[in-house]
């Protein structure tokens, strides 16, 4: 075995190297140069994102603990794109006086969580999976408590770390049962030895509950809204898009490759949780006043739609889940980009504050409208095609009632997304957000998001490429 074989672990190695470089720069650069740390990190991560697209070979490392294939590389690249957007969006916020001391910590923590997610997606053994999932969640709790002078941020941090610790405890308890019945923790061997005994199903249910915490599926969603509201906006956008996306990716890989033996069991589980997640997420989103809480519940209901792609266990389902997450990254980060810009300029975070935004900041409100339309699934933006493929994947396997419920939920969601649009365009605000000019980074991130929303919808080649890399049960 030569050193070259480690290169199939390129994504993770680059991320770790970048994290170390940021740390070294923080130590050795003087006060003047430190102002450029955020620019340095963004450029570094941009290079990593591009390097991720270089052709790669499939293979395994560490005796099958680490597995990489074209599918996992695709998932990592999608996460990289989203994380790059979050990096760019957070630069103006990090330039503020109170954060200037902590810039390198922010990037260090983000890079290590991303490395954790990549290891999690590439796992071939439950130990690697567990280490990855913990590396992906523990630093995020530190990030949620990043605004150490704000009460809400501290509260969000403790809520995130305690609920994620509980969820990993439950997940591990399920894993211990799976280990007890199969005697191995390698994905391949577990899949072969998995039968239909009740202890194994109990273990799977515990395991699924732990994963559901991470994706914030109802009834395991209660931490979501508080953590999203309390965290700094950039961290919220990272949580709602990248963390959730990575957890969805690994869950679909696990369900399709490790647990195909009990497909009829997890189909029932997914059916019930999907209906609950969509409905409860939507109903609670209607009554929210804070825009971050609103987007939190909207992201819960989006997770419910994503579960529709799981249920059939077919290749189209997996392709539509990956495609939907790509679209969701652009749409949600577009919406969050506008929220971040307004929050940075004025500190306002309520939906009422957006009254009359169109008259003062027309371009921001147009981008927000486009992003919300994409989240709601209105043609011709990309969100429509994403939802269409998800519903098709479920209908292909005969889940017509579930698709009907999902469509009804889409109509409910349209109502509350349009409430924000109405606030921006029609409502008259007494103290509207003043006209302000965004800086280069905000503009760049929003431009990429808008381009993504439009292009991923129309370029059918993207969905075809994803479909070729997907697989069914």
């Amino acid at each position: 075995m030569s050193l070259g074989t480690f290169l199939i672990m390129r994504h993770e190695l680059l991320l770790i190297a970048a994290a170390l470089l940021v740390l070294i720069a923080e130590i050795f650069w003087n006060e003047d140069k430190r102002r450029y740390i955020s620019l340095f990190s963004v450029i570094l991560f941009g290079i990593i994102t591009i390097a991720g697209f270089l052709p790669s070979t499939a293979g395994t490392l560490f005796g099958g603990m680490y597995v990489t294939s074209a599918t996992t590389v695709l998932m990592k690249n999608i996460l990289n794109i989203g994380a790059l957007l979050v990096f760019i969006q957070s630069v103006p916020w990090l330039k503020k006086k109170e954060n200037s001391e902590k810039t390198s910590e922010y990037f260090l923590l983000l890079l290590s969580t991303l490395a954790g997610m990549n290891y999690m997606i590439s796992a071939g053994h439950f130990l690697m999976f567990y280490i990855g999932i913990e590396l992906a969640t523990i630093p995020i709790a530190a990030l949620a408590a990043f605004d150490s002078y704000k009460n809400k941020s501290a509260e969000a941090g403790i809520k995130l770390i305690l609920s994620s610790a509980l969820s990993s405890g439950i997940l591990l308890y399920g894993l211990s049962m799976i280990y007890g019945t199969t005697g191995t923790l390698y994905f391949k061997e577990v899949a072969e030895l998995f039968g239909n005994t009740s202890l194994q199903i109990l273990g799977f249910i515990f395991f699924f509950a732990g994963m559901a915490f991470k994706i914030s599926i109802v009834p395991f969603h209660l931490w979501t809204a508080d953590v999203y509201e309390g965290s700094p906006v950039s961290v919220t956008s990272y949580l709602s898009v990248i963390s959730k996306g990575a957890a969805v990716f690994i869950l679909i890989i696990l369900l399709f490759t490790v647990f195909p033996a009990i497909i009829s069991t997890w189909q029932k589980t997914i059916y019930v949780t999907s209906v609950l997640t969509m409905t409860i997420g939507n109903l609670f989103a209607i009554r929210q006043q804070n825009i971050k809480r609103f987007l939190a519940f909207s992201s819960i209901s989006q997770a419910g739609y994503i579960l529709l792609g799981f249920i059939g266990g077919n290749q189209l389902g997996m392709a539509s889940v990956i495609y939907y997450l790509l679209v969701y990254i652009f749409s949600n980060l577009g919406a969050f980009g506008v929220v971040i810009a307004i929050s940075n300029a004025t500190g306002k975070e309520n939906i009422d504050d957006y009254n009359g935004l169109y008259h003062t900041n027309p371009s921001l409100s147009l981008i927000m409208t486009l992003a919300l339309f994409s989240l709601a699934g209105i043609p011709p933006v990309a969100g429509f095609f994403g939802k269409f493929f998800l519903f098709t994947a479920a209908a292909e396997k005969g889940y017509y009632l579930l698709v009907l419920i999902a469509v009804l939920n889409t109509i409910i969601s349209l109502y509350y997304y349009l409430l924000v649009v109405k606030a921006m365009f029609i409502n008259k605000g007494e103290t509207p957000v003043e006209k302000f000019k965004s800086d280069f980074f905000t503009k760049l991130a929003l431009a990429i998001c808008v381009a993504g929303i439009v292009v991923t919808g129309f370029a059918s080649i993207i969905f075809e490429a994803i479909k070729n890399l997907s697989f069914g049960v």
Partner: protein
Amino acid sequence: MSTGIPVQYFLILATIMFFTGVYGFLTRRNLITILMSVELILNSVNINFLAFNRYLYPHKLEGMFFSLFVIAVAAAEAAVAIAIIINIYRRFSTINVEDASEMKY
């Protein structure tokens, strides 16, 4: 195995510990006690892994290694959690969850 204690006893102990931990997590109001409940859950998982490994699959050591990693990760988790709890104490002057809460559902 000739150790005398049947494997079921370990599993029953682990189950009791797990649900004690869950109960404590949900009912306790002190953040440190909640953290202790989480540790109880993780230790019950360790007992499960070790008992299964020793009694059912003694020729391989996967369960042993897994529990080692669980201990290490639990320490990391506790470090971050306690750091945040200290910050909460500075903000709110209390670590009771009812008093240290600003956001309402």
